[in-house]
Every structure is written in structure tokens, then in C-alpha cells.
């Protein structure tokens, strides 16, 4: 069973295994197909039309499946790797070890935003940005420039306390847990982190920055924490909603998975903050 760990707790060997697997997916072209898929949904998910990956209730199950596919691709390269999560309420400055040269590299240089250190710097020749919204082929960041502060623990707690998963009109103007976590309403959690990192993370091709996966692994963890705290709250809507993925509707692009299938993350992985499931504990 895969265990997703806090990135701050990874050993140097675990960091190297993770970044090496990312570089291998980049080399084979698999990485870029994920970026293309994400941007396709970014551009087609609309508040008044069909919406699957963003600004809709299925934001959370869609990204859970998207990350599972990516994690499976990483594990084909190296079975020991899992997706780390970035708790941005705790590691909240550009001086965090997350941004060190032995992990993701740091912020971009002033002139053009180009990330100059770490395994994903353009000069290495191993991590060109191929799926892009403009002509720039290098990874860019502007940590803390688009917005000064990452969301705080208190802001997260307030959102986790919201008892209703989502509400009509099931889009970026909705109240409820999903939209406050996604960030179109309220304190703005998920969206703000994209803007804080800047560069490609602020665009539709945000998965070009490897921190995308660690950010969404944490958003995914917050969904699991919300479920644990609100055991009587269900995924909504249940059925019959136009343009929106109901509980038992399938999600594009896979068409073989529903939000109901994604509700229990423990079918697929656990977090390092959770007890080890009895089944896998007994096997050890």
C-alpha cells in the first residue's frame, strides 16, 4: 500500500528517487501528456457549461484520479516512489527545504522568472516545458510575488469546519466546502497557492511545475480530513444535475470512474499521519 508522506520529512534518498522518476516521465513524454490533459479541462470547464475538473463538485474526485494516474506512472519507473504532499500552512516561505537545490529548486531569477537551480532548471536539458501557453520553454516561478502569504492553518480549519460539501449552482460562485477549498470563494486556499508559486503554476499548464503534484496531494489530504471530521456529510449533488458530475456519473477523460469510486482514498493509499491499515500491517 502506497503511503503519501509530508515532503518536509523525506530523506535525501527519497527526494532523489522522486525527482529522478519525474525526470524519467519527462524524458518519455508521459509527463507532458498529463499537462495537456489538465490544460484541456482548464479551458473547457465553464461555470455555465459542462464542467468536470475545476469549478465544480468533481474538482476533488477528478484531481484524486488524476494524481492516482500520475503516481502509477511514477511507480512504473520506481515502485518505491509515492506522491509527497506539501503542507503550505507549515512550510510557507521561499526558504523552505522544498525549494532547495536538492529538491525542486528555488524561485525564478528577476529578469525572466527562470528557475536556475535544482533538477528542473532549464540548463540541465532534462526538463523543457513543452506544453505551454507562450513561447517560454523554461520552468518559471515567482514565489510570493503574485500574492504575499500562503493560506494559514486557521484559514484551513475554518474551511474544514464547513459541513456541506457543495451547493447549487455547483460552480465558482457556490458556497460550501468544495468551493472554499478550491478558492473561488472565501479565504481562497487552493487557487491562492497556485498564484503564490507563480510562473507556470499560475497558468492552465500548471502541472509543468512538479510542485503541482505536491500541492494537489495536500488538497487531496484536506478533502480526506474534511470527510473524517464531517462523517455525515456526503458528496453532492447526488443525481440529475445538468452539466455537473453527480455522485454516480462517470468523469471524463477516463469515463470509467465516478466520484463515488473516489470517496475513500484508503482503497489506494494512506497518509503518513494515519494509522497503517490492519490488512497491510498484518502482512508485514
Amino acid at each position, binding site marked *: 500500500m502506497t503511503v503519501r508522506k509530508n515532503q518536509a520529512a523525506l530523506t535525501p534518498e527519497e527526494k532523489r528517487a522522486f525527482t529522478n522518476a519525474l525526470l524519467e516521465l519527462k524524458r518519455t513524454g*508521459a509527463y507532458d*501528456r*498529463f*499537462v*495537456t*490533459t*489538465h*490544460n*484541456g479541462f*482548464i*479551458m*473547457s470547464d*465553464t*461555470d*455555465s*457549461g459542462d464542467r468536470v475538473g475545476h*469549478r465544480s463538485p468533481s474538482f476533488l474526485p477528478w484531481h484524486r484520479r488524476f494524481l492516482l*494516474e500520475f503516481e502509477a506512472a511514477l511507480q512504473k519507473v520506481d515502485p518505491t516512489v509515492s506522491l509527497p504532499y506539501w503542507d503550505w500552512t507549515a512550510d510557507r516561505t521561499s526558504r523552505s527545504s522544498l525549494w532547495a537545490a536538492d529538491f525542486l529548486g528555488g524561485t525564478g531569477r528577476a529578469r*525572466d*522568472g527562470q528557475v536556475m537551480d535544482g533538477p528542473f532548471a532549464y540548463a540541465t536539458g532534462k526538463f523543457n516545458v513543452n*506544453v*505551454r*501557453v*507562450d*513561447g*517560454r520553454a523554461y520552468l518559471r516561478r515567482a514565489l510570493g510575488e*503574485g*500574492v504575499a502569504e500562503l493560506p494559514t492553518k486557521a484559514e484551513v480549519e475554518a474551511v474544514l469546519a464547513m459541513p456541506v460539501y457543495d451547493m447549487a*449552482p455547483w*460552480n*465558482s*460562485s457556490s458556497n460550501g466546502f468544495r468551493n472554499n477549498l478550491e*478558492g*473561488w470563494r472565501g479565504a481562497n486556499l*487552493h*487557487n*491562492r497557492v*497556485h*498564484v503564490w508559486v507563480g510562473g507556470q503554476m*499560475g*497558468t*492552465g*499548464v*500548471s502541472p509543468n511545475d512538479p510542485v503541482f503534484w505536491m500541492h494537489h496531494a495536500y488538497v487531496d489530504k484536506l478533502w480526506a480530513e474534511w470527510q473524517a471530521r464531517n462523517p455525515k456529510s456526503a458528496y453532492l449533488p447526488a443525481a440529475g444535475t445538468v452539466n455537473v458530475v453527480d455522485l454516480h456519473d462517470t468523469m471524463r*477523460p477516463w469515463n470509467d470512474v465516478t466520484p463515488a469510486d473516489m470517496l475513500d482514498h484508503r482503497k489506494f493509499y494512506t497518509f503518513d499521519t494515519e494509522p497503517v491499515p490492519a490488512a497491510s500491517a498484518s502482512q508485514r
Partner: protein
Amino acid sequence: MNKITRRQALGTTAGALSALGIAGATAHAAAADSRASIPTGTVDEVYQGRRIQITPATTGGGHHGGHHGGGHDGLPTVRIDGRELHVMRNADGTWISVVNHYETFADPTSLARAAVRELQGAVLAPFAPMGGTA
């Protein structure tokens, strides 16, 4: 044709004014003051050296005059140096683009200017085709 000439003239005016650092507001005023051939909401300005052109959505006439293929009827066409910027309108009336996807802007002009700042001189890529295969 006459319309294009007039827009080009506007662009030139805005370009000259941008050197004075007052391009935005002045170009707006120029567009608003111009004759009826330029519909309300049309913008043609030079901002930080980049040409921004905004054409409002056509109303009442269907969307077969579309500038691009899919499902974005009712939206204005925003171009930066002639390249189209993918834009969307949120339910609350705010705007986002594919360049600034995770923060909202009050109107298409401020959205286009934010894209210019973000591009730092880079050229917009053509729209990516929908439907990846990952």
C-alpha cells in the same frame, strides 16, 4: 477595411502615448470617443509595448463568425500582438485567462494587461487542442 485602418490608427495613437505612460486610460477614451463603426467594449491599446485588441462578443447573430472552434460563444475575443488569449467569464462576472487562471480580474482589459505583465515579452502560443490522452 476602413474599420481596420481606423483600429490601426488607434493603435498608433496609443503606442505614441504609451511613451508618456498614460496609454491605458487614454486609449480607452479614444475608443469610447470614436465613431459608431467601433462597437462598445472594443479596446485597441498598447500596454507595456504590447498591442491589446479586444472585440466584444457578437450579439444575436449566432456564433458562426467564431474566431476559434469550441464552445466559447458569448465571450469577447482578446488578442495580444495578434495572438488570441483564451479567456473565460466567471459566474460572478469576473474574468480569468489561461495565462492567469487562478486569480480573477474585473474586466477583459485588466485581464489582458495582467497577461502582458506575466508574458514579460513572450509570445502567446496557439490554443492547445482539447482532449489529452494521459
